[in-house]
């Protein structure tokens, strides 16, 4: 029974080998990331969906002071060893 199974399956694998090789040609390669996964990860990684990114940040001290004087608001400063809007 087993030898009969082998006699059917092994030739099928051998026959499909060129097709598998073709599927992995550099110009035909496909990503293991699906479009559905791409969309899901994009939503998770898009900073537009993060509350901190909706604050109108200033990155120049002088411009922040000028804006604060004009709009009559205090300045909140976030400081880090790296920009708090990035690595810090």
């Amino acid at each position, binding site marked *: 029974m087993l030898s009969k199974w082998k006699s059917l399956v092994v030739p099928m694998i051998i026959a499909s080998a060129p097709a598998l090789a073709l599927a992995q040609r*550099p*110009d035909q*390669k*496909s*990503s*293991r*990331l*699906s*479009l559905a*996964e*791409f969309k899901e*990860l*994009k939503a*998770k*990684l*898009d*900073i537009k969906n*993060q*509350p*901190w*990114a*909706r*604050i*109108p*940040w*200033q*990155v*120049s*001290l*002088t411009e*922040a*002071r*000028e*804006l*604060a*004087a004009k*709009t*009559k*608001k*205090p*300045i*909140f*400063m*976030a*400081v*880090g*060893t*790296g*920009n*708090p*809007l*990035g*690595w*810090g």
Partner: protein
Amino acid sequence: MGIRAIFLNNPKVAELLRTRFVCYALDNVVNPQMTGAEKEWLKDRGGRACTGGTSVFTAGGQVLPHGANWDPSGPNLFAKHQDAMIRGLNAALSKYHPEKAPQINKPDPKQLAEVVRRPFAGGLALFATYTVLEWKEPLNLDEQWRHSLNRVYEKAIPACPGVDRVWTRKEEAGALAAGTFPEKLKQRLALHVAYGMGGKSKVKAVDLTLRAGRLTGSFLLEDGERADVLGFIESKDGKIRRFEVIVKGIGTGGCPCGGLGPLHVLPKGKKAPVAIAFMLADPQTNLGRVPPHSARDLDRPVLKGNH
């Protein structure tokens, strides 16, 4: 990363900051983006912080105490920290009185041009963002790094992607618009991929194909892990209108500090799926103007060339 994840990303804190304050972010070590005179003015207003911190002051320079130095404890630490920040910000607002005509000296333009880095004219600014996926085991942060904020980090950081920037030159943006992915840009993305996967293993091979606006392929790391890529890069009238590239691979925990974002919470040596995105930012906006950080030592000429 901690300030952004714990406080700035809290919807109530963010809304209070958005509506009642002018918000300013400073990297006071690597890229301060300010002149000597600006540094001097700021030093007694929070500019001397050696790690992360927050400060509130007026345009004229009056510091408004907001109780940033707290030490809450107990099971509701996460809520207590955020409540403390909201109480502190409201306390600062209650003490705020607008000055009539605060003296604000304009920085010397020549000095400013020497210290402020801007995205390349005609180039692209990209956000590089990192997150850890599917991590379900106990984090046990105390075992690797005892810190009073660990309980807070465990909840806040996984919800807040790490973020950095990638800038491209005008020629690179032009090549992309013409359908070619520049080799140097591939290498710069590879720096972020290696960093985002834990930083211990470099990328040894990049195999990316851009065809009809679709980017596919992978980054192969020295440890044998392969990070897969799917992206879409589209242009109109010679300008890039869409740049959305997602990379997914296996990251390794180990560094409890820096900009890795959610990789903070991966115990040392533990592996988990990691996703990294490269997405278009507007170089004219302040978020797009924040200079790249994590690749700074490896790709310094790119930044220097922007002066």
